[in-house]
């Protein structure tokens, strides 16, 4: 049986169920790297060119970890586009090349090109080409791919019930997951999934917010029609798939009564983030409280925690004020003090 390594990073968080069930149906054994930890990050930083963004550095760490295992292949797809007229950040296009250039002695890479921007024909051929590594039956390969797509849909529908993709993947693999408990704040959180759901990169953003008694609303929880419709309201179409999804989600969240505030997680040094983050900030700011958190390999958790706490404080107090409770914005009445400090 062939063993295929899949790095637990980048598009893992969007497509793992498809990949896993595709390769499994073809009889391969799948091995993933461990969730990002200090070693992965340090290794990735050592390997990467300094200018690359943080998530790509982390990815390299994952690949390096997998290289230590006995593997027949490592799956490093070349993602260009996953839907018509839209693209993935150009860094993904060069991923297999980057891996080859920076990591010596990798097992053979499965570097299928995924480009659905115009038509699917080439892609279908490529799938067959990849499948042939494991079987000669074209039909079996096609079925495996279809099955993979179904599994992916299933996993996404799990996520849509209030979970992150990381959690949804775990549930899809059979791990039980607790639903959110009662919360008093509802916060929209945006960012590239591979930053947001990687606990190391996001410094556990989603779980931290939940621990602060917030319900977290993610793009995966919204219907894609709503998101696309909102995204279509800006004058120039955003041709990055993830960027458009975030923009549409942000616009939608900013109009929802039940959303108290919006957080955007950006990566320092990310081109798309610097544009999309800025557009979102401008569009959303007047309707909803908003903060942009920027992370990179040097960020300390303390700075993030302070901002999150301050943000939650602010939301709670603004709401208390709106509901005209007798409480002052800071708890007891401030002005019972003589003003004499």
């Amino acid at each position, binding site marked *: 049986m062939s063993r295929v390594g899949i790095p637990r990073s980048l598009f893992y968080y969007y497509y793992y169920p498809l990949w896993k069930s595709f390769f499994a149906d073809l009889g391969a054994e799948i091995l993933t790297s*461990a969730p990002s*930890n*200090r*070693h992965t990050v340090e290794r990735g930083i050592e390997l990467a060119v300094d200018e690359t963004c943080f998530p790509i550095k982390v990815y390299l760490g994952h690949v390096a970890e997998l290289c230590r295992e006995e593997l027949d292949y490592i799956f490093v797809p070349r993602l260009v586009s996953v839907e018509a007229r839209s693209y993935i950040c150009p860094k993904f296009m060069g991923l297999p090349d980057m891996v080859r250039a920076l990591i010596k002695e990798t097992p053979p890479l499965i570097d299928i090109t995924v480009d659905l921007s115009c038509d699917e024909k080439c892609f279908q051929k490529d799938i067959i080409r990849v499948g042939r590594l494991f079987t000669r039956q074209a039909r079996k390969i096609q079925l495996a791919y279809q099955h993979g797509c179904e599994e992916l849909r299933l996993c996404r529908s799990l996520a849509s019930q209030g979970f992150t993709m990381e959690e949804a993947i775990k549930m899809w693999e059979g791990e039980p997951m607790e639903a959110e408990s009662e919360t008093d704040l509802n916060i929209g959180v945006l960012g590239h999934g591979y930053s947001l759901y990687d*606990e190391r990169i996001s410094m*556990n953003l989603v779980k931290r917010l939940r621990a602060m008694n917030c319900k977290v609303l993610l793009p995966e929880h919204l219907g894609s029609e709503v998101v696309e419709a909102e995204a279509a309201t800006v004058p120039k179409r955003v041709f990055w798939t993830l960027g458009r999804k975030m923009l549409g989600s942000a616009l939608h969240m900013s109009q929802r009564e039940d959303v108290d505030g919006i957080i955007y997680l950006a990566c*320092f040094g990310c081109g798309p983030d610097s544009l999309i983050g800025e557009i979102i*900030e*401008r569009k959303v*700011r007047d309707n909803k*409280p908003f*903060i942009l958190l*920027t992370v990179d390999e040097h960020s300390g958790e*303390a*700075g993030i*925690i*302070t*901002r999150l*706490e*301050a943000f939650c*404080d*602010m939301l709670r*107090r*603004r709401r208390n*004020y709106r509901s005209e409770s007798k409480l*002052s*914005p*800071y*708890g*007891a009445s*401030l*002005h019972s*003090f*003589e*003003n*004499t*400090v």
Partner: protein
Amino acid sequence: MNLYLGVDIGSVSSNFILLDQNGRLYRKLYLRTLGNPVKALKDGYASISDGLDKQHGKIRAVGSTGSGRHLAAVLLGADVVKNEITAHAVAASHLFPGAKTIIEIGGQDSKIIILRNNIVHDFAMNTVCAAGTGSFLDQQSARLNIPIQEFGDYAVKSGHPVRIAGRCGVFAESDMIHKQQMGFPVEDIIMGLCEALVRNYLNNVGKGKKIEEPVVFQGGVAANRGLAKAFEKILGLKINVPAHYEVMGAIGAAILAREQMELSHSPTRFRGDNFVLEGNFTSNSHECSGCPNLCEVVCIKRDNEVLAYWGDRCKKWESSIKQPRDRLKVV
């Protein structure tokens, strides 16, 4: 007399204040942290509480803020542990009800807080650039051989401030050296630096924020009159500097502690003199090898008793303590 202790432990300075029942400042203390917050806390507490007994002062509640707020909470026993944004906002809107903008510049960070109806409406903290903070001024004063305390006096004497590039600390420094060599008077260079710092602050921290009056300028750097003047000139707004600008975070923490006491009617968590003064506190860290996360776990001890752990992602160290830290839960 009922007193409320507020402490603000930052990376550069540690501030302590005592507030009386009526919100009057009773004592204040501004110390350099010098990389040793445990010592700063102990020394600071010792001097701020010195002789309180004889004067019938009693600490009723404690609030902590700043990057060392959790440490302070463990060592002293705090009733309220608050982030710096909220603490500064509370103090400013207490002093200047109706204030709309707070400019806070401290040793290593700076923030802007926008208030509406005395509530935080929006805020930002600087992320990358140190050119807009106190350590930058400290460095430059050392370079110019002028004590930092006199920086402001020089600055306000300037008639024609020199324009200094403020985009980044490194450029500002080389530009300043250049202007010095060209023979510009030192007052004009210093005022030029202040203006550069203000522009830098407004571009980085204040980016996209609507700065409206009344404006309150606080934090250690507000000591520098040149900066307040530069803000007034560049913003065209009146700048208010509170009398105790350097301890506003601590004042906010004390106010919150007092409120907490009034709301909860529960006894204070403050540990008292003996606990703080007679124990030998140590903090050390080790790398946990329990899983690939390799967390840097910090352990705070009083003599041989472990008071707190943090830094462990899975909370296995934290929950190993008999007396759980949720006593100190962030409010």
